Structure formats: structure tokens, C-alpha cells
């Protein structure tokens, strides 16, 4: 199987998986926090936050990538600060993580928010009367009951991050071995004569990974529904 792909292609596949995994991991804590705010806390500016979270879904990816470059580039206001503590995002794989995380964030938040909204608040009240302070109610009742949705959201986030192209190539470019993910590698192959074959093989790899992730996500979503139906027990 090792000789199905060139070394460069293996690197692209491995980098894609690494970037998508990190993008999912770093998005989860803020994703859960934002989903909880949107689901449970009416506050002024909630519509604004909701819009901001969904912005990457409607903006052209190249615009999101360019905004990231302006903010997090070496000369950008946030990029400069991060560079001082040794974190460089632009033209680095860590930048690809940021780009993928931002692009996948709306999907993650949406899935978690739906599952949080499905948790019966009467169970949370019961936990309170048993002596659990609000943080403990969240950790022992709300989050465990919403967990299938959190996992489903994480898988969707992973799949989206794996396929992210526009924002990533704009922000961190397409450097083989550094920032060249699967979609960027496919794009590169298509730019040279005779690249159709390799492009097709990588396309099949992308499709296979995405399908596996979506099926897993759907199976988990079914578990959420069953769990929600059991809550009035």
C-alpha cells in the first residue's frame, strides 16, 4: 500500500489528518462555551455572536483566509503579539490549524448547541436541589447528556477541517511538507500536465475519509435522539 502514493502525497495525507485533528481539539472548548452561551444564556448581543460564529459559513473562504492573514500575519496585530512568545501561524502548519478551526467552527457550534438545547432543564434543576453548584450541574448532567451531540459535532468539524481549502491556501499558502494539505496537493496536481491521475487518487482518499466521518456522525446523531427520548424517564 505504501507505493500507492509518493512520499510527497503521504506527507500531504498525514499533514491533513494532523491539521484536522488539532483543529478539532482546539475548537472544542470554545465551541462548547459558545454553544452553551447561545443555547442557555439570553444576553444582549446574542444575535451578533450568533452571526459572527456563522460568518465563515457565508463568507467566501478566500475572504476568511485574507482576514486571518491581516490579523494573524507576521505584521498583523495579533500575529505580532504571538510572534513575541514564539508562535508563528502564517505560512506554518499551525496557521492551517487556525484556518480550518475557524472554517469548521459554525458546524461544531451548531451541533453542540442543538444537543444542549435538547437537555431537559428540569434535570438540571433537580441536580441543583441535590446540592450541585452550577458548574457541577454542567459537568455531571448537562455535558454527559449532550455528549453524543458534542462527539457528532467534533466529527463534522474534523471532516470539514480535512476538506478546507480556500482559507488555508490564502492564509498559509501551499508549501509541500509544511502547509500542503490534501486539497492543496490535489490543486497542485491539477496545475501541471499529466497530474490528473494523482489528483484522482487523492480525491478518492478525501472522499473516503469524509464519508467515514459523516456516517460516524449520523450514527451518533441517532444515539442523541434516542437519549433525548429517554430523558423524560
Amino acid at each position: 500500500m505504501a507505493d500507492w502514493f509518493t512520499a510527497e502525497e503521504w506527507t500531504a495525507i498525514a499533514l491533513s489528518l494532523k491539521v484536522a485533528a488539532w483543529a478539532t481539539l482546539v475548537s472544542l472548548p470554545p465551541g462548547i462555551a459558545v454553544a452553551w452561551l447561545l443555547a442557555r444564556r439570553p444576553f444582549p448581543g446574542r444575535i451578533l455572536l450568533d452571526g459572527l460564529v456563522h460568518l465563515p459559513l457565508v463568507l467566501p473562504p478566500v475572504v476568511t483566509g485574507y482576514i486571518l492573514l491581516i490579523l494573524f500575519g507576521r505584521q498583523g496585530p495579533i500575529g505580532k503579539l504571538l510572534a513575541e512568545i514564539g508562535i508563528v501561524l502564517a505560512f506554518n502548519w499551525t496557521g492551517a490549524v487556525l484556518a480550518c478551526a475557524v472554517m469548521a467552527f459554525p458546524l461544531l457550534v451548531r451541533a453542540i448547541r442543538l444537543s444542549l438545547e435538547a437537555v431537559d432543564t428540569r434535570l438540571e434543576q433537580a441536580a441543583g436541589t441535590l446540592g450541585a453548584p452550577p458548574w457541577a450541574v454542567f459537568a455531571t448532567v448537562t455535558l454527559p447528556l449532550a455528549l453524543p451531540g458534542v462527539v457528532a459535532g467534533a466529527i463534522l468539524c474534523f471532516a470539514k477541517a480535512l476538506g478546507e481549502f480556500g482559507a488555508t491556501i490564502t492564509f498559509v499558502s501551499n508549501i509541500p511538507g509544511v502547509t500542503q494539505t490534501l486539497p492543496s496537493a490535489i490543486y497542485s496536481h491539477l496545475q501541471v500536465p499529466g497530474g490528473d491521475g494523482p489528483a484522482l487518487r487523492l480525491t478518492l482518499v478525501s472522499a473516503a475519509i469524509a464519508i467515514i466521518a459523516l456516517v460516524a456522525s449520523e450514527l451518533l446523531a441517532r444515539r442523541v435522539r434516542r437519549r433525548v427520548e429517554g430523558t423524560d424517564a
Partner: protein
Amino acid sequence: MLDLDLTYRRGDFTLAARFAAGPGLTAITGPSGAGKTTLLNLIAGLLRPHSGDIRLDGTALTDLPPHRRRIGYVFQEARLFPHLSVRQNLRYGRLFTHHPAPAPAPATLADITDLLDIGPLLDRRPRDLSGGEKQRVAIGRALLAAPRLILLDEPLAALDAARKAELLPYLARLHDQTRLPMLYVTHHPGELRGLAGGWLRVEGGMATPAPAPDQ
């Protein structure tokens, strides 16, 4: 001793409550929608009164959040945690309190399972319990959190006649063995004959002491 003197308003609905309830069982009756559950929610801290005070054994509860009031609440629907076993449900309150249960209330898991006969259910999930079993577990769960007062909101309402008859002796045991003050909302005063030491009536926006109903 629970001392209550408060008013609560929401929209057109008002509830004024003024009474004291001592040890033993105090039954709360009144027409549907009169505010009986609202009254319990105010005492538990799930709702905040518009004005007035709630005191339990001399300490003010009014500004305490529910988790710091040490008031057990048995809801109409048992509200067991579906993702936890019966044993984990029962122990839930012990995670957050170091208080022993006020004597002579049963204090350990073994005492509680004996009192309510729920030993054989410990490893089951709530969804595998009958309605009556769920309510017994819910009562046990509230007791293990070492409450100073127990609120019961029509715990028999969701049960058929046979299950009601099955649960009633446990309520009598709970009453006889714990000496905890209990407020018990019911539509069927007959259920509590011989148990209730005091009666409250919630009607027309007022919750006040009342004589025992005749029937």
C-alpha cells in the same frame, strides 16, 4: 421549622404566602393552577419571590441559590438522571455535601435502600424502573443529600391506583422514621389521612393554614 412570608408575581398571577410549618408532614391542597408547585419552587429556590422572606430553622434562605439550601425536592415526574444507574442517582447528592443527615433520618445508602426496598434496583437504569420504583428512588436520592426539609409535589399523581397503594406505605415509613419536616402537595387529601400534621390551602393567590378537609 419553616417560616414563610412572601409574595410572588408573574404577569397576572400573584401568590402571597404566610405560614409556618414544623416537623412532620404538612399537606398542601388547592385547585389546579392555584400555585401549589410555584410555592414549592419558591421554597426550593427555583423561583425568586418578589418580596418577603423564607427562613428555615432561623436562617434566611431567600438569597441562597437552590444548591445551598439543603432542601430535598421530589418532583411529580421523578426526574432521575437517565445516564446514571440507580446507585449513582442515589449517591449524587453525597458528592456535594459533607453534612450528615439530621438524626434520626436514615443517613447511609444501606439505610435508604432498606427504608424504601430499592436494594435490588441499584444496578438498573431509570428507564428500566416502573413509575412507583422511580418515585422511591427519587425519594431516596433526595434523602441522601441530607436535606433539612423535604418537598413532595404530588409524588403519586403519575401513578395508577395499584402503584399508589404500593408507594403509600413507604411515605408513611418516611414520615415515621425521619422526623424531617415535609411539605406535600396533593389533590387527594384522603391519601394523607393519619399522616398530615398540618394543612395548607393555596387558593385565590393566597397560601394560608387551613383546617383538615372533611372527606
